[in-house]
């Protein structure tokens, strides 16, 4: 192993949503920051939407699933013991290159589920603590949306107006209105107008495949250019094998394989881990030492435990009218939070939301994303014509609750291309989630039929739906039951910080990235204001 790099103040591991936000904020504060990223830079002009064979690319090299992509920068994931397949993207920008950029916030109640509903645990911070960081992140990433949503607290004006609903969204909105149910246009990190030198969206459709116009706020086009202007060094195709510590248990840096496969070491005064809710526990569990025999920061035994996804049920409605439902952003139309909060009359605790989704072109229509594919044979063309441009999908996004048996562990056999143990996922959907999803399916059917759907089909649990990886290094006040404190600082090592979805105490029923990024910005401010010892 070679120590041929200058020591740095802060070493950030992972260049995705949270690593980018933290690095940018720390560099603003004058810290020297190096970021190690196992993936590479992608050029937006090379994204699938610029290629005629984009539909094939979406199902192969641009799949959400690393086990399908099998790129050199991906690590394998053993999900054979999981109800849900974890999804991620390894690159500068991380999964924000792949995401739909749907960006709702947690509710104030999401931070107090133990106090309010007697389940899980309260967060060691409140909505109000995060609110300024949500606002800052909205500015940095570029938020389209509109004020006045009665389901959420008032908040600052979004930088851009909402994306249009389109004929399909309008139809669904009117149906929600007739049922007396809440809906609101989605907050999106997609430009509805040009913003900070990035173009407005042009409605091409599959925004889950990277955005060639840079209209979508992925961190490779938002935080990273500014962070690098401030002096942050992003070192790509560098895979960290372990975080290193000294005899006292303090973190000293990280060992990694560089792009040529050589082992290197980067020294740092502090390490910020931003590898997502699967990658982070994997790395901590693999970073053992005499002082941390069961893994770094794992004296509580909570590293890898309490894995949460958002279990999704997908309910598809098919309409007679041609609405060109392949036009427009995939999942950024509207959200319904009518059933978000606990209602004692229901047989489950906590709640769920609906996120409306569109379809994405002829191949996806034929394959049937959330319902069985179009039948082959003599009836094929009739069934395809019935669906194409006429299907609307309501995703039921259920709040998952933390359970110890749902976990990320190290696989004893499976390893990545550098010999590092792969993550093993053990996850079973809870009975509470199942009841919640079933309730959501029943109500989705009502609203789709109210909107005029002649056929409604439900997928009760989307297996390839593990976009949101949370809970595996959770924050809390008690070192016996949590891994990090409210600032993301490890209880066991005061110069180790975690800033990704691992730190979530509970999952809420919304897409997590704005909350992940707000937490990362808050951690960075903590380091800036209270840890001057970490700056040379």
């Amino acid at each position, binding site marked *: 192993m070679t120590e041929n790099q200058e020591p740095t103040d802060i070493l950030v591991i992972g260049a995705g949503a949270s690593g980018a936000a933290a690095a940018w904020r720390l560099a603003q504060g004058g810290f020297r920051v190096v970021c190690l990223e196992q993936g590479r830079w992608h050029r937006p002009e090379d994204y699938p939407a610029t290629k005629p064979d984009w539909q094939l690319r979406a199902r192969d090299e641009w799949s959400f699933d690393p086990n399908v992509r099998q790129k050199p920068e991906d690590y394998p994931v053993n999900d054979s013991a999981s109800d849900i397949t974890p999804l991620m993207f390894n690159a500068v920008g991380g999964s924000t290159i792949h995401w739909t950029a749907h960006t709702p916030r947690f509710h104030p109640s999401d931070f107090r589920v133990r106090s309010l509903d007697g389940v899980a645990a309260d967060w060691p911070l409140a909505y109000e603590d995060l609110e300024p960081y949500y606002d800052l992140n909205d500015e940095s990433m570029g938020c389209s949306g509109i004020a006045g949503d009665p389901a959420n607290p008032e908040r600052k004006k979004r930088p851009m107006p909402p994306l249009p609903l389109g004929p399909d969204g309008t139809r669904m909105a009117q149906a929600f209105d007739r049922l007396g149910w809440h809906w609101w246009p989605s907050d999106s990190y997609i430009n509805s107008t040009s913003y900070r030198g990035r173009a407005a969206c042009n409605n091409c459709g599959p925004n889950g495949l990277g955005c060639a116009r840079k209209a979508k706020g992925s961190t490779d086009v938002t935080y990273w250019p500014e962070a690098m202007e401030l002096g942050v060094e992003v070192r790509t195709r560098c895979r960290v094998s372990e975080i290193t510590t000294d005899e006292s248990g303090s973190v000293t840096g990280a060992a990694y394989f560089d792009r040529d496969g050589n082992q290197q070491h980067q020294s740092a005064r502090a390490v910020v881990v931003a590898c997502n809710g699967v990658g982070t526990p994997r790395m901590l569990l693999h970073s053992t030492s005499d002082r941390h025999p069961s893994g770094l920061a794992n004296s509580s035994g909570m590293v890898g435990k309490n894995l949460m996804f958002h279990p999704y049920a997908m309910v598809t409605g098919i309409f007679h009218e041609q609405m060109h439902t392949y036009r427009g952003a995939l999942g950024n139309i509207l959200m319904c939070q009518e059933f978000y*909060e606990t209602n004692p009359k229901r047989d489950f605790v906590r709640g769920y939301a609906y996120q409306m989704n569109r379809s994405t072109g002829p191949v996806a229509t034929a394959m049937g994303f959330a319902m069985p594919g179009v039948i082959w044979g003599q009836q094929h063309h009739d069934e395809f014509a019935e669906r194409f441009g006429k299907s609307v999908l309501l995703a039921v996004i259920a709040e998952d609750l933390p359970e110890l048996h749902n976990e990320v562990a190290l696989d004893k056999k499976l390893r990545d291309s550098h010999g590092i143990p792969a993550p093993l996922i053990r996850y079973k959907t809870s009975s509470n989630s199942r009841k919640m999803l079933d309730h959501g399916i029943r109500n989705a059917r009502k609203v789709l039929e109210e909107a005029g759907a002649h056929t409604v089909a439900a997928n009760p649990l989307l297996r390839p739906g593990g976009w949101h990886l949370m809970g595996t290094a959770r924050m809390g006040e008690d070192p016996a039951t949590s891994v990090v404190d409210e600032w993301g600082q490890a209880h066991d090592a005061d110069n180790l910080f975690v800033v990704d979805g691992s730190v979530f105490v509970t999952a809420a029923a919304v897409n997590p990235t704005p909350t992940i990024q707000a937490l990362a910005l808050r951690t960075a401010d903590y380091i800036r204001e209270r840890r001057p010892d970490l700056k040379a």
Partner: protein
Amino acid sequence: MPTKDGKLTEADRKVLVAAMDRLIPAVDDLPGAGSMDLAPEAERIARRIPRFHLALIKALDALSLDMSAHAYGGFRALPGEEQDAALKGVEHALPSVFAQFLELVYIVYYSDERVHNRIGWRSGPLQPAGFELEPFDESILETTRKREPFWRRVPTSTNEHPQQTR
């Protein structure tokens, strides 16, 4: 039957064409997927992507091994209904293989410009043209805007009781 190194023989290619014609039959002025000469594209993709290659080889293998088909001169010589029955047999016996074989056929068919013209899809890359982005019409918010805030209030201290503004 494919050779040991996984390459398709000419006989395999003819079976593939026949199978594709049954999976996606002729419509309007378009012949079936096989007769549209899409089998070479399926083979090209399969050579590049291992999971499709495996599915293609196994599916063709299974169709070739169908003894009833052999008795009458192979899959290609069967009447259409019996070809469908043979395909259904593979679908039943090897569901995962068949699903990926079908995915491959759907990909090549629905990536073809002639099919796009028929179904009214603009062929080629999605960018840079995209589609028009109309401004958001706020009038549709009228109903929801009338509703009182109903998000659940949270106590700011432990002495307060939570309330839901519903």
